[in-house]
């Protein structure tokens, strides 16, 4: 190893340490910012170090690509609104996987039949998962951005088709490991992977996106780790492994929060018009009590404790700032206001936390499900804003319900519940929510933002 290579490797090692420390700093919001800034310094060092690599002889394309990437990346970092964060994250998985896949293709073109078996295995893995993530993430982006319908697209034999395609791709992969020199099979496999990414995300509904986005995060990481194996670069192996572990862990957490397995999310097409509407039949006989903004405001203003339960509806209506305004007014009157966050509320892990933080809600007011559930019985009012399935008591009580067993926020145990909802349409799984018919519950119909605005002016008028 030349002295120059030694220095470059030293820089990579330092960068790896800074990345791990950066992720570690995310265990506490007060330290996180500095930690991630140090990780950014590590990245800058790694990039500069790489520029001294002995193989690099021309800088024209590098310069243009770095500038182009910065010009595209800067607005994606600075101007994308927090409500668009899920699709923003989804599309960035696509860029990561694209980079990994292209490096894989280039390595294959260069070495072809001379590639050793073990390296070919890594390379195959890289382009298989990379390709799948490129189109899969683009589909997820499309669904979240609502370019493509958010409802699941299903047809007969869909799972059979997907499994067959996957099986064929695996066979090609095995074939390549034993005879690496076949470009037809190699590019065919990439084509299949790209197709699989589309087919895999097509049947998945909007509310299952937290799992899918996390899973694609994991795939993108594993693909870039495989790249590290192929080009024999440890920093890439390390970062890919970190990324993969993070995505994997998040997908497990999200699946658990929905009480479902990966397989069920990927192959279940949960959001399809469920045959499980049986439970809904009984609901027709029940009555819903609606409440005026004036009464609702009165009840909250004279409450001791109000727990706000935000859901995707808050994100859609971009109502987080009005929520904060209402909470401020209530607090001025001596009401304690807390926020209960379900792990899968919204469209990605942590979605609600980011939105509320954007609206300047201090983070020590945001409580996880486990922390807050025991507090609902003491709360005078639980204010549900555009959340549905995560507060459906059927998950606790009705074994025939499709969401039975899913951990929920025990909103129904509060002394009173006020639900802000656009209409009586059921949630994503088409499941009736008996919370809405409970004598304890009052419904305030209308768009979340305008309802909250009315509540704010009513509280002000008191």
């Amino acid at each position, binding site marked *: 190893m030349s002295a120059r290579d030694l220095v470059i490797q030293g820089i990579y090692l330092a960068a790896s340490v800074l990345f791990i420390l950066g992720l570690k700093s995310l265990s506490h919001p007060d330290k996180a910012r500095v930690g991630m800034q140090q990780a950014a310094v590590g990245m800058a060092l790694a990039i500069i170090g790489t520029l001294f690599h002995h193989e690099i002889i021309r800088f024209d394309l590098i310069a243009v*690509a770095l500038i182009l990437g910065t010009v595209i990346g800067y607005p994606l970092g600075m101007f994308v609104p927090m409500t668009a964060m899920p699709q923003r994250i989804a599309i960035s998985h696509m860029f990561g996987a694209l*980079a990994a896949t292209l490096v894989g293709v280039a390595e294959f073109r260069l070495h072809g039949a001379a590639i050793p078996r073990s390296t070919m295995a890594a390379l195959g893995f890289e382009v298989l998962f990379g390709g799948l993530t490129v189109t899969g993430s683009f589909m997820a982006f499309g669904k979240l951005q609502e370019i493509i319908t958010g409802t699941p697209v299903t047809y007969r034999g869909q799972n059979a088709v997907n499994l067959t395609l996957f099986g064929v791709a695996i066979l090609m992969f095995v074939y390549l490991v034993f005879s690496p020199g076949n470009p037809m099979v190699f590019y065919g496999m990439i084509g299949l992977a790209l197709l699989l990414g589309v087919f895999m995300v097509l049947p998945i509904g909007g509310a299952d996106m937290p799992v899918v986005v996390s899973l694609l995060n994991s795939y993108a990481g594993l693909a870039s780790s495989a790249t590290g194996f192929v080009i024999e670069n440890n920093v890439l192996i390390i970062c890919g492994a970190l990324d993969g572990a993070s995505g994997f862990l998040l997908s497990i957490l999200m699946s658990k929060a929905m009480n479902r397995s990966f397989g069920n999310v990927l192959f279940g097409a949960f959001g399809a018009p469920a045959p499980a509407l049986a439970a809904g039949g009984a609901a027709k006989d029940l009555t819903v009590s609606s409440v005026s903004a004036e009464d609702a405001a009165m009840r909250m203003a004279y409450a001791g404790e109000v727990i706000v339960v935000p859901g995707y509806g808050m994100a859609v209506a971009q109502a987080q700032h009005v929520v904060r305004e209402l909470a401020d007014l209530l607090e001025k009157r001596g009401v304690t206001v807390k926020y209960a966050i379900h792990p899968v509320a919204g469209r990605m892990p942590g979605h609600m936390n980011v939105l509320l933080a954007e609206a300047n809600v201090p983070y020590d*007011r945001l409580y996880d499900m486990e922390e807050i559930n025991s507090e609902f019985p003491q709360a005078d009012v639980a204010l549900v804003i555009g959340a549905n399935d995560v507060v459906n008591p059927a998950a606790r009580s009705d074994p025939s319900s499709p969401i039975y067993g899913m951990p929920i926020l025990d909103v129904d145990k509060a002394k009173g519940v006020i639900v802000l909802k656009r209409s009586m349409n059921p949630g994503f799984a088409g499941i009736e929510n008996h919370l809405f018919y409970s004598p304890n519950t009052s419904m305030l119909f209308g768009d979340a933002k305008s309802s909250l605005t009315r509540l704010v002016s009513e509280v002000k008028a008191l």
Partner: protein
Amino acid sequence: MTPIGVVELYVFVLAAFVGYQVITRVPPLLHTPLMSATNAISGISLVGSLVLAGASRDTVSNWLGFIAVTAATINVVGGFLITDRMLKMFRREPKLPPGGEMEKKAGGGGR
């Protein structure tokens, strides 16, 4: 090309283990910044694509590298910026003077 060594597997397994341990400690509060942070870090694939774009192999390799560098740079620049933007928003409640705290508690008790 040389076959993959055992050392690389060691690195991978240990890094995945460290990642798992570190990331289990990230509270759900910061899961979105965690995702954007890992995204930004995954832009380290630049170490491969930069060489590809600048080496004297063939033109196609250079252009594949060009696209890869662009894509990875988008993640690095956008990823670190958006993570910072999000983390900047997470603030603790401003500390009240001792008297204010008492007042607030008393207010909370009275209906």
